[in-house]
């Protein structure tokens, strides 16, 4: 660090203020950390800056992963003889890859319409809590009816990135950042599906294997970046209990494991971890 400039000091106060207003997870802020994170003080100049920055961030790993996943999904539709419009429309209108895979599986095996709708909805229950954990972090003014449209852009990829980045973004710019990020992910999923549908059959099976594998691998890797202990415990318990509940009943396993593992993690956190200062992430 060079000499301390007056502007730096005022920035420190802004950072302190933002930090206190935006999250209670940081009860006290070490001044050393602030100077290290100087670039995050005024991370974005304006809403459009935040929007384009979200888009830029999406063009890295998130879009790559989603694109690969959608190509894999398109290929799955083609190789099973499912209608092309059906395959592409599900990416555009559902924009939830795990749900789409469940839909595709059940359409191929000829399940009833009611059973399909129920199974897909159960797989999508994660969106309830994903939205509930992400949107309260937005600015008060942004939390209006428009969110009912914006929420369609919310998928696991954008959620994982936003949960990580929001803490270093000013509250007023968070929505723009999220829209930029989510919009690109959504828009890229349609050409990805079309490409997979067209390419299936030309591409060797080894490449398709890689494309299908990249999605779960991405989620697994983002878990290593989760900081709060309560969420780390929840992830570990989910990984341990998940296989058991999946063998019991595949469709409802997300909901049952999520609630049981989440509650246990919460109780462990509340009873033991929170009392020890320094362990709270």
């Amino acid at each position, binding site marked *: 660090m060079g000499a301390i400039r007056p502007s730096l000091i005022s920035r420190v106060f802004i950072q302190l203020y933002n930090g206190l207003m935006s*999250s209670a997870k940081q009860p006290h802020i070490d001044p050393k950390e602030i100077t290290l994170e100087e670039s995050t003080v005024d991370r974005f100049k304006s809403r459009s800056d935040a929007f384009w920055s979200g888009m830029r961030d999406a063009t*890295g790993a998130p879009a790559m992963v989603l694109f690969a996943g959608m190509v894999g999904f398109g290929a799955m539709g083609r190789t*099973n003889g499912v*209608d092309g419009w*059906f395959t592409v429309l*599900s990416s555009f*209108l*559902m924009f939830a890859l795990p*749900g789409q895979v469940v*839909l595709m599986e*059940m359409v*191929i*095996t000829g399940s009833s*319409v009611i059973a399909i*709708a129920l199974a897909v*909805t159960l*797989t*999508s229950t*994660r*969106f*309830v*809590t*994903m*939205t*509930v*954990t992400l949107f*309260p972090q937005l600015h008060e003014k942004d*939390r209006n009816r428009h969110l009912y449209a914006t*929420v369609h852009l*919310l998928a696991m990829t954008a959620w994982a990135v936003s949960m990580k980045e929001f803490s270093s973004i000013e509250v007023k710019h968070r929505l723009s950042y999220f829209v930029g990020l989510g919009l690109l992910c959504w828009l890229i999923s349609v050409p990805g599906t079309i490409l997979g549908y067209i390419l299936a059959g030309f591409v060797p*099976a*080894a490449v398709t*294997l*890689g494309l*299908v*594998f*990249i999605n779960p*691998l991405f*989620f*697994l*890797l983002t*878990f290593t970046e989760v900081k709060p202990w*309560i969420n780390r*415990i*929840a*992830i570990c318990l*989910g990984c341990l209990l*998940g296989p058991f509940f*999946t063998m019991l009943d*595949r469709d409802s*396993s*997300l*909901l049952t494991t*999520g*609630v*049981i593992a*989440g*509650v246990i*993690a919460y109780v462990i*956190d509340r009873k033991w971890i929170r009392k020890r200062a320094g362990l709270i992430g």
Partner: protein
Amino acid sequence: MMNASLEGWGLWLALAGACLGTYICRAIGVMLSDRINQDSEIFRLLSAITYAMVATLTVRLILFPVGLMATVPAWIRILICVLSIGVMVSKPTKRLVPALLTGTLLMVGYGIIR
């Protein structure tokens, strides 16, 4: 193969049902998020539940896959995951893309040599 699958109106009704079910979950989330403060206890609980759900989904995709991925032995899938995580945590920052490439290329490599 196609004789069991849904055709005609059933196919599109299934799509409509799936889209509606997915959107309803998102909309319920927006509705509830109005009343939830991010500093509250319920927020902490719901975060934990969400992470557990996402973890379950990930494990399900890796351990209980359908279609092509199911033809890969489980121990190969797990081994590749462990190696990728190893690359990821070998340095605390900016290792996501190298780790992703490691895992994906290993899987493609397995597909070629098997």
